[in-house]
């Protein structure tokens, strides 16, 4: 024979068991469910915070690096410009110097050549005068058929040629 409780009744032992069950279940849910899940949630929250902090840090560092880089770039550009300017200036000076030296050398060489030519011409003219006076003396001796006084006449002829040269 199966025994049943009345439909509406209060059984003391059931009452006590139910309260104990609920308390045990609360402890179990707290220990096995809430604590475990909350631990993970807390860890995740901390990780997210750490990640955000790191991201902010990295961003600040990047901005700083960018500023530094830009400053470096600007100064480098300036330096390069001044370097190029200096180099150009120096090259200009150098080329001017070289040109001046070359010009001076050329004019010196020209002057020397001119003086050489002049000296040569004078020497050639002197030789020519000497030869011509010899030839003239010989020819005159032949013409007058007599021995001329070489020294006397030579002076005479030289004088003549000199006058001739001056006249020319």
């Amino acid at each position, binding site marked *: 024979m199966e025994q049943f409780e009345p439909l509406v009744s209060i059984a003391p032992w059931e009452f006590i068991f*139910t*309260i104990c*069950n609920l308390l045990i*279940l609360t402890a179990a849910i707290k220990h096995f469910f809430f604590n475990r899940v909350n631990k*993970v949630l807390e860890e995740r929250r901390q990780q997210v915070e750490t990640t955000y902090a790191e991201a902010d840090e990295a961003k600040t560092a990047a901005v700083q690096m960018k500023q530094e880089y830009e400053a470096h770039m600007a100064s480098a550009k300036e330096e390069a410009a001044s370097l190029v300017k200096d180099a150009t200036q120096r090259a200009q000076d150098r080329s001017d110097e070289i040109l001046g030296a070359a010009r001076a050398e050329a004019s010196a060489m020209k002057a020397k050549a001119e003086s050489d030519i002049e000296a040569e011409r004078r020497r050639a003219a002197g030789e020519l005068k000497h030869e011509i006076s010899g030839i003239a003396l010989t020819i005159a001796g032949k013409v007058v058929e007599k021995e001329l006084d070489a020294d006397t006449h030579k002076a005479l002829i030289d004088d003549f040629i000199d006058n001739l040269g001056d006249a020319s």
Partner: protein
Amino acid sequence: MEVNITGAQIYFEIPILGGIPITETIVNSWIVMLVIIGLCLFLTSDLKVRGVSKRQVVAEMLVTTAQNFVNTNMGEKFAHYGPFVAALFASSLLSNLLSLIGMFPPTSDLSTTLAWAVLVFVLITATKIRTSGVLGYMKGFTQPIFVLTPFNILSELATPISMAFRHFGNIVSGGVISALVYAALAALSSLVLGLLPGVLGDVLSQIPIFQVGIPAVLSVYFDLFSGFMQAFIFCMLTTLYIGNAAEE
């Protein structure tokens, strides 16, 4: 045709302390407890901070929802009530849903719901005493005027009783109506099929064919909707009462 509507079946008695009866209520509430603890262990196995599984998503959602529910109704300082309210809701809901698979729901036993309600009443009273002291708690009964003291005491005692009977009544009425409907359908199908001629009618009238499908419609309301609603209402009242107790 006889329809017996009774309480929990008594399986046997442990012959100590004047006999401890082991009833369907107790056994089924142990089953509910085991299922809840098993679910907790299953959902929280292999928890990870990153790359979570679907299981963990469900677990985190449950914890967050329960905690939000408690924090909203009771305030942040009662956050430690989260596991208690979750345990209350889970036992109530799963107990109610046991009727879906034809088992006796422990919540259709007044002992169960009254035990919960009394525990909640103790928590309410403890919170009140902690908030305003023993004298303050006593003095609260004479407010706003001394004449109202008996009524205040009545209304205080009515809290657990109304909570217990509301929950119990809703679940047990569902069970009673289901039992009546099943009996009525069996009678109807025996009556209708008995009209069939010869042996066919004799055999078919023994099988309550009308019980198939039709009670499912009622079950959606009484077992699913009402079961969920009563669990929710019980927890809602628990959190609100305890939360209010701290404000006085």
